[in-house]
C-alpha cells in the first residue's frame, strides 16, 4: 500500500512488527476475529438492540400491507419487494448503531491505539453487521410469508436465507464504511441512508428479483443470473471498502 500519511505509516509499522513472525493474513484474520468477538459479546449482553430492530422490521412489513391494501394478489406479487425493503430500512438502524458506542466512549481512538490494522477493524465490524442483519431473517421471513399470503415449498426457505445473507452482505459492505464516516458527523441519521440507498440499488433489485423467483417459481431459470449479480456486488464492495477504510478512520 502506498504511504499516504504519517499515521498510516505508524499503524503499518506496528502491524508489520507483529506480523513479521506470523504472516500478514493470519494476523489480519486474528485481529478481525478479535473485533468481531468483542462486538458479538457486547451485543449479546444487551440484546435489546436486536429485539428493537426486529420489532421495527415487523412494523415495517405491516405498514406495507396497510399501504397496499388487503388485496391478496397485490400483496403476494409484492412480497419479495416488501421483505427486502424491510431489510433495507432495518439496516440503517443497525448500521448507524455499529460505531455509536465507539464514538460516544471515544472508543474509536482507543481502538486505533491498539495494534490493530484498520482493515481488520473494517472486516470485523462488517461481519458483525452482516450477522446482525442475518439474524433478522428467521423472524421477518415467516411474518412476510404469512402477512402476504405466500405459498412456498419448505426448501425455498433455505434459498431465501441464502439470498438474505447475500443481500445483508451487500448492504453491510458500503454501509459499514459510511457508518464509520457519518458516525462522526452531526446528521448521521440523514446522511447514512442518503449515501447508502442509491448505492445499493443493485442489491435491492438483485435480491427482490431473486426472492420473487423463489417465492413464485422460476420458469425461465433466471435465479442464477440475479444471484450472480448479488455475488459480484458483494465481492466488489467487500474488497473496495476494505481497501478504502483506513482513509476513513485515520487522521490526515
Amino acid at each position: 500500500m502506498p504511504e499516504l500519511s504519517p499515521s498510516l505509516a505508524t499503524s503499518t509499522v506496528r502491524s508489520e512488527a507483529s506480523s513479521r513472525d506470523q504472516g500478514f493474513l493470519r494476523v489480519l484474520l486474528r485481529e478481525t476475529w478479535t473485533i468481531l468477538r468483542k462486538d458479538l459479546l457486547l451485543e449479546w449482553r444487551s440484546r435489546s438492540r436486536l429485539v428493537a430492530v426486529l420489532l421495527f422490521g415487523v412494523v415495517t412489513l405491516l405498514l406495507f400491507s396497510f399501504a397496499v391494501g388487503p388485496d391478496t394478489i397485490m400483496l403476494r406479487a409484492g412480497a419479495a419487494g416488501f421483505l427486502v425493503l424491510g431489510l433495507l430500512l432495518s439496516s440503517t438502524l443497525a448500521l448507524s448503531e455499529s460505531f455509536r458506542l465507539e464514538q460516544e466512549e471515544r472508543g474509536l481512538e482507543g481502538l486505533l491505539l491498539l495494534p490493530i490494522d484498520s482493515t481488520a477493524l473494517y472486516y470485523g465490524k462488517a461481519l458483525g453487521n452482516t450477522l446482525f442483519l442475518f439474524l433478522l431473517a428467521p423472524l421477518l421471513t415467516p411474518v412476510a410469508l404469512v402477512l402476504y399470503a405466500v405459498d412456498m415449498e419448505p426448501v425455498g426457505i433455505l434459498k431465501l436465507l441464502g439470498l438474505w445473507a447475500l443481500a445483508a452482505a451487500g448492504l453491510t459492505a458500503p454501509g459499514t464504511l459510511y457508518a464509520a464516516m457519518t458516525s462522526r458527523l452531526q446528521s448521521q441519521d440523514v446522511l447514512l441512508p442518503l449515501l447508502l440507498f442509491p448505492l445499493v440499488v443493485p442489491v435491492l433489485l438483485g435480491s427482490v428479483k431473486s426472492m420473487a423467483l423463489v417465492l413464485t417459481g422460476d420458469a425461465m431459470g433466471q435465479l442464477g443470473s440475479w444471484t450472480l449479480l448479488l455475488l459480484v456486488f458483494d465481492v466488489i464492495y467487500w474488497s473496495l471498502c476494505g481497501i478504502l477504510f483506513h482513509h476513513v478512520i485515520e487522521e490526515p
Partner: protein
Amino acid sequence: MASRFPWEKASLIFGLVLLAIGTYIGLFVSPPERHMGDVQRIMYVHLPSAWNGMLCYTGAFVAAIGSLWTGRRKWDAALVGMAEMGIVLNALLLVQGSLWARPTWGVWWDWDVRLTTSLIMLLLFSGVLALRSFVDEPERRATWTAIAAIISYVDVPLVYFCVRWWRSLHQVQSSPETVDTMMVVPLRLNSFAFLFLAIFFILRRARIELLRRRFQEVAEPEKREVVHA
C-alpha cells in the same frame, strides 16, 4: 488566486458559438426523423448532455483517485468541479428525457434503462457533494469526498446492468436513426459545445473551491491540525 487559464474565457465563447450554430441547425435545418418527427430534435441536446455528463463523472472519479493518492487540494477542487458539472448535466438530461418521452410514449417517465440509471447517478453524486457540507476539516472533507466518489462511480456499471436486466422483459426501446449527415453535424457541434462549456464551468468551480479552502485555512487555522474533538 495563482493560476489563471487565459483560455478559460476562450473556452466559454467557443462553446457558446458552437452551441448557437449547433442549436440552429438542429432545430431548423436538419430533417425530422422518420418515425419520431420533430421531437427527435431533442437528441441534439440530450446526447451531448449525456456524453459530457458521463465524462464529467469519469473525470471526477479520476480526480478522486488523485486526491486520495496525493492529498493535494487541486485534485479535490477538480473533483468538486467535475462532480457538480456532471450533476447539472445529469439533471438537464432527465428533463430532456421526460420531454422526449411524453409525446413519444404518452408518459413523462417510462423507466427507460439509461434514464433510470441517470436518475440513480444523480442521487449518488448529489449525495457525495452533500456529504461535504457536513465535514469541517478540509483534509478529511477531501478524503471522504474522494472515497464516496470512488464508491459511487464503481456502482454505475452495476446499476446499469441490473436495471437493464430488470427491464429486459419489457418494452424494446426505439432509438432514432442517425443516418442523415445533417443529423450528425448538429450532434457533433453540440457535443463539442457542451464540452467547452463544461471545461469553462469546471475551471470556475474548481477555482471557487480553492479560494474557499484557502480562506478557511486562514480564517480558521485551528482546523488545520485535526484535533480529536
